């Protein structure tokens, strides 16, 4: 459990660092790197990065949107189209972040396995 959580925290910290100078896929990179260095067993190798990505994107976008009274978020929720439901847009966005991190996390783990020839 502790390793799972520490993986999650590590992904978030690394992603926040990388996104200062890398595009949106800094999250995928962070998730890949952490999962490569500290691989998790079973489905956790997907879900922990997923949670990390989803949490990071949710909290970060919530902070930005909330600070500006959702002026743009409300409009983007019309554009996408999500009936102008800003909460739904936050959720969708968070899931996208989660999936991106999840898939690259699994890939990171698999790379590690391939190198270790564990099986």
């Amino acid at each position, binding site marked *: 459990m502790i390793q799972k959580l520490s993986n999650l925290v590590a992904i978030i910290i690394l992603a926040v660092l990388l996104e200062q100078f890398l595009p949106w*896929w800094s999250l995928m990179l962070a998730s890949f790197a952490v999962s490569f260095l500290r691989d998790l067993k079973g489905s956790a190798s997907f879900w922990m990065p997923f949670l990390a990505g989803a949490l990071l994107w949710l909290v970060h976008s919530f902070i930005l949107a909330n600070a500006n009274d959702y002026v743009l978020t409300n409009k983007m929720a019309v554009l996408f189209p999500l009936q102008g439901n800003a909460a739904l847009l936050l959720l969708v*966005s968070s899931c*996208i*972040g989660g999936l991106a991190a999840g898939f690259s996390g699994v890939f990171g783990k*698999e790379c590690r396995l391939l190198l270790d020839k564990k099986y």
Partner: protein
Amino acid sequence: MEIRLILINFKFCEITLLANLHTNQNLQHLHRFMNRFTFLRSLFLAALFFYLLNNPIGKLPPLGKILSPSEGFWQNEKDEVTTGALGLEGLKEPVRIHYDAQLVPHVFAQNDLDLYFAQGYITAKHRLWQMEFQTHAAAGRLSEIFGKKALEHDRMQRRKGMVFGAENTLKDMAADAETIALLDAYTQGINSYINSLDPEDYPVEYKLLNYAPEAWTPLKTSLLLMYMTDMLCGGDADLEYTNALRLFGKKRFDAWYPDFFDTLDPVVPKETSWNHISSSMPTVPNQQTPLDEIAETFEKPHPNNGSNNWAISAEKSYSGNPILANDPHLGLNLPSIWFVMQLATPKHSSYGATLPGALGVISGFNKHIAWGETNATRDVKDWYKIQFQDASKTTYRYEGNWKAARIRVEEIKIKGQASFLDSVRYTHHGPVSYDASFKGRHDKEGYAMKWVGHLGGNGQRTFLELNRGKNYENYLAALQHWVAPAQNFVFASADGDIALWVQGDFANKWKGQGKFLMDGSLAANDWKAYIPKSDNAFSKNPKRGFVSSANQYPTDQSYPYYVFNDGYESYRNRIINTFLSSKNKLDLEDFKSLQNNNFNLKASELLPTMLAEINRDALNTKELRMLELLASWNYDNGMNALAPSLWTEWWNQLYKLTWDEFEQKDVALKKPFTYQTIYLLKNKPNDTYADIVATTTVETAKDLFLISFQSAMSVFDTWDAKSSYKWSNYKGTAARHLLQGLPAFSRFDIPIGGEENSPNAVTHDHGPSWRMIVEMSSPPKALGIYPGGQSGNPGSVYYDNFIDTWAAGDYFEALFMQSTTDTKHIRSTQTLSPKS
């Protein structure tokens, strides 16, 4: 969905492979294989997901990019930074930018180069996407953003010679050392801002469309000026008139499209003497109009593009200070076409509406003078029929010889595809816009355009000089640089002068020249000379105590030069002049009330006839009730009134029915103007135009009134309750985002009255795009408002915060700062300093 299918596929492969391997009983192999397999699967999924999120899918922008909080639209969820200190390369001395409660930047620089550098920088900060998009639209470069669906638009722009005109303008600007130096500084300022951006800082439209801003160039400023030129004087109806002449004959054409209407209240008062004009007028040559059948022409600028302006003398003013007003009527778009600024150096200081992309204040004031523009609406675009020697279209017939055409190859880049190359022929008239490859029919024929928009000129200098102008002489000198689009420049000065010049380059035409398509092979049809600018119509300190213009005729028939009606407005001008004449003294409240005046003069001139003539016996009770509603109407298009909706629907249907002979396929036509239509319906009710072509009976105006009324009133059956068709609902005014009216970034159902021919000329998509009132006190007091907001960012509250104030007919008080230390009403300050 796709992803799930792929996953299932993988599962299936896995099972079959497992089965095969099991038969081999080789578990070691199996493990190694599985290891590789799950590795490959994870690689595939990660790569696939990356691809899907990093690229646009269908109409969706790249989802990873746009939804990422560190790079996506969330980064636009904020106001622009208006505080702090920045070091910028290119500045000579520090510039202070004070922002007031309206987010109007007050730029205080130490010299002109820094001033226009800062104007560029600050404008880009608030309006970058719009600045670039408008110049892309002008240049015919939208295919680079939208792909092939914009190709037709881009070809049209190229074939109009938009880039050709912009290049000519730039040549003339470059020939003037001061203009080009300031333009270079402005360009540098914009680029300084662009270069400071990381992708997450790009305006949200770039993120949605997945492209990046490019460097600004002086040519882009030229293109922006061409964008305005095209908007304001890019329209004409020569080819449509040619079709009408061919179809209906000269007699009917002249009755439907007279050179002058019977009522006239021109820009320059009727009693003006033209004795000072001594130029000889060209004689009408012996020539034949080529009566071609023309199927299709360019899309025209919005027919309501126009404006109001007026100024009253010191004697007519409540305070003894001249007062000036201006409200340009343009498409209601977001971000708004205007951006309000104060631009100050120790030598001069001006305030008013700027155009993102051009230098200086366009409609505004300084402490000495105020100025504003309305469109002068004149036929400044003519068409020549070109006969090429052969299908290669390299030479064309001119005065019995073959003259070489220049070929300009327009490369239109298309997103995701190979470029489209369009070879446009240029004759001595101008570009052959229509030929076999574009809307034309014949291999060896084409139509060449002659347009003042191609002449170039240094109109930018006009504004630079007005911004620092001190008196009438400076104003007059500034106007000498103006070529196109022809404008009615209104003027008022603190020392008591008011004036209005109808300014621009106008060809001195023979009577009838350029009303129809002309034979391009005859020198007699060429534009020979321009009207000397000193002979342009103007009015200075007239006896009546005011000057005004609202896109009507510049003069009456006594003006010696050839002028004919090519779309002059016939109602607003009369309402304005009547109002201004009705009182001895006028104050700011009068000005506000006039700018927001919703009187429907047009309806008042026809509705009584319609009500008197309509056959009431044919109407049912409900229709009679609606007729009564109309009969009791005071002709005010207030937003809550019902009658304006009934009238408008009735009038629109009547107009369509009256000109049913124009509903023809594959023939470009322009229906007669409203004023003349009403004149005919009232004065020639039994004339042939009134007959409905599709029926065997012969209809008169009286019949048209009834048929159109019944059909119009039935439209309201589908409106639920009576209150639902109140005028503002029926009209449905909206300010639409420049990006094809993107609903999420647009404002709909704006509660406002007015109609196209009332001074408050608000229609569903068009209206007063900037309202300004300036009293030339010391210092001047000014009011302003526009239907938008200072920020171009849909994520800012300043994106559309003026709209409600504008709709309510209110204004903000312009904060005209007298010095950089006068910061009482300032919210924040940003300092731009030279980079050390």
